[in-house]
């Protein structure tokens, strides 16, 4: 039984979409069933190791195909674009690993911009502690149930979310607002 089939068996109805690129299997599940699905993947599927967790800001990706429609025709996202309204702006990807079979699985969850909340998976894997904090720090996605939902890399007074696509590379000049006493 291939990885895809096994995962589909475990997730059953929770599975929204399953894709594969270069051998990496990626499944999409909904926000509501996230913790439950991950728990089943951990206990039944043997994906007992959380490698990492990351956020992605898709706003550029969905803005692009309109401009470049004629040039490229092969992006999968592009097809979705044509089917219906653009999907939620953010997504969070969980990189799972099965220690027994050495298979890796990506699980992704979409998070709409107007409701930036996700359940925390720190109860399943404690390794999600800092990655969740970092995702909050960089994208502003809040994880409910996290023991210490504070900024990780940026300082606490920092207002913006730097890894969002609309945050400029040079920054917004935050450091200039620190009150230095330069005579």
């Amino acid at each position, binding site marked *: 039984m291939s990885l895809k089939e096994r995962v589909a068996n475990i997730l059953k109805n929770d599975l929204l979409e399953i894709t594969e690129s270069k051998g990496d299997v990626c499944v999409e599940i909904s926000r509501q069933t996230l913790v439950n699905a991950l728990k089943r993947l951990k206990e039944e599927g043997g994906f007992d190791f959380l490698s990492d967790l990351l956020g992605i800001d898709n706003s550029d990706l969905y803005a692009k195909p309109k401009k470049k429609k004629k040039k490229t025709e092969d992006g999968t996202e592009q097809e979705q674009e044509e089917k219906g309204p653009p999907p939620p702006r953010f997504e969070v990807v969980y990189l799972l690993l099965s220690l027994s079979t050495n298979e890796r699985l990506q699980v992704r969850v979409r998070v709409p911009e107007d409701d930036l909340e996700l359940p925390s998976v720190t109860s399943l894997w*404690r390794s999600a502690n800092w990655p969740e904090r970092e995702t909050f720090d960089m994208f502003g996605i809040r994880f409910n149930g996290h023991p210490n939902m504070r900024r990780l890399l940026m300082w606490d007074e920092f207002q913006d979310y730097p890894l969002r696509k609309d945050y400029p590379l040079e920054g917004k000049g935050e450091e200039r607002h620190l009150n230095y006493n330069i005579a």
Partner: protein
Amino acid sequence: MAKEIETVCITTGPTEVGDYVTLNIGPIHPAMHGTLRVITKTDGETIISAKPEIGYLHRGVEKLGENLTYSQFLPITDRLNYCSAICNNVAYEMAVEKLLGIEVPPKAQLIRMIMMELARIADHEVCVGILGVDLGALTPFFYLIIQREEIYEIFEWHHGARLTNSMGAIGGVEADLPDRFHEKWPRMRDSIRKANDDTDKLLTHNRIWMDRTVGVNAFCGDDALNWGFTGPMLRACGVKRDLRKNEPYLLYDKVDFDIPAGKHGDVFDRYMVRMLEMEQSVKIIDQAYAMYKELPEDAPLMKKVPKILRPPAGQIYHAIESPNGELGFFIRSDGSDKPYRIKIRPPCYMVYQAFDDLVKGEMISDLIACLSSLNVIAGELDR
């Protein structure tokens, strides 16, 4: 449970917060490797809690990655774990190659293996040496650092840089092994072994060293996996997991080597695992070098790749075994010449977040020993 934390100090000690001393270790402190900071609460010398604060070296590497082309990002990866920059380079190159769907020629793979194992030795030498320094034994550090200098010399011959290597390119490596490597390696193998031997004699069976390391910060395998430990840290806890064996990449499945593993996950086991891994790395280099010798001299070093890389859209995650553990690159491509999103999974990031659990109930001296044995590299931690 990770360990039986002595309940005496927690239950019958002073209970009010004000009774503890808050000791701010770092970001500027002689024992901090890079700019790390730990806020500790201590009862006398016993640590009640230790909260690591990170981000002092945050340079937005991931954001930079989104704004540079695939080839331009390569030198940035040097600045992650600067003790073994080659492993970062190769990990990134391999991730992009996976995205592009190309396989590099065997000669390039062997050169990458040799260089990576040399980098691994250099990294472990620094880690073990610094651990010694932090526990007060300064001399082994110099024995090891001299060997590291020799390794850096090889790096310099091969690609011109010593610390921030930027070795290779996407699609292979640009240069063959330097001529001087062939005569240097047999001598260097002996000197590396001798330096390790001297360190071993000075430290391993030293009573003070054992007192300071055996049983300190012991951690069990299940907890370590739950916390996301990888690499020497995980192996010290008794879990034999090494990506070179479990998910072979390059030509690691063709070489014969062992995975050294500890039992208790204490500082001593981590030290021993690193010491033994250096032995294994020497063994791997020997085999890889023998395989390299069998290849014809004009075998290709590079796979033909276009000048401007435009990988097809998709997202991949590729991890290799860096000296510290699983170093992974998650790349999403949207078909353009720049990665849409790059996420680096640094190994010591996952280890360091468990720091509070590791050192709770131990003493300040053990905190320093623990920190050194974790080999936390600030560049990799904060990215």
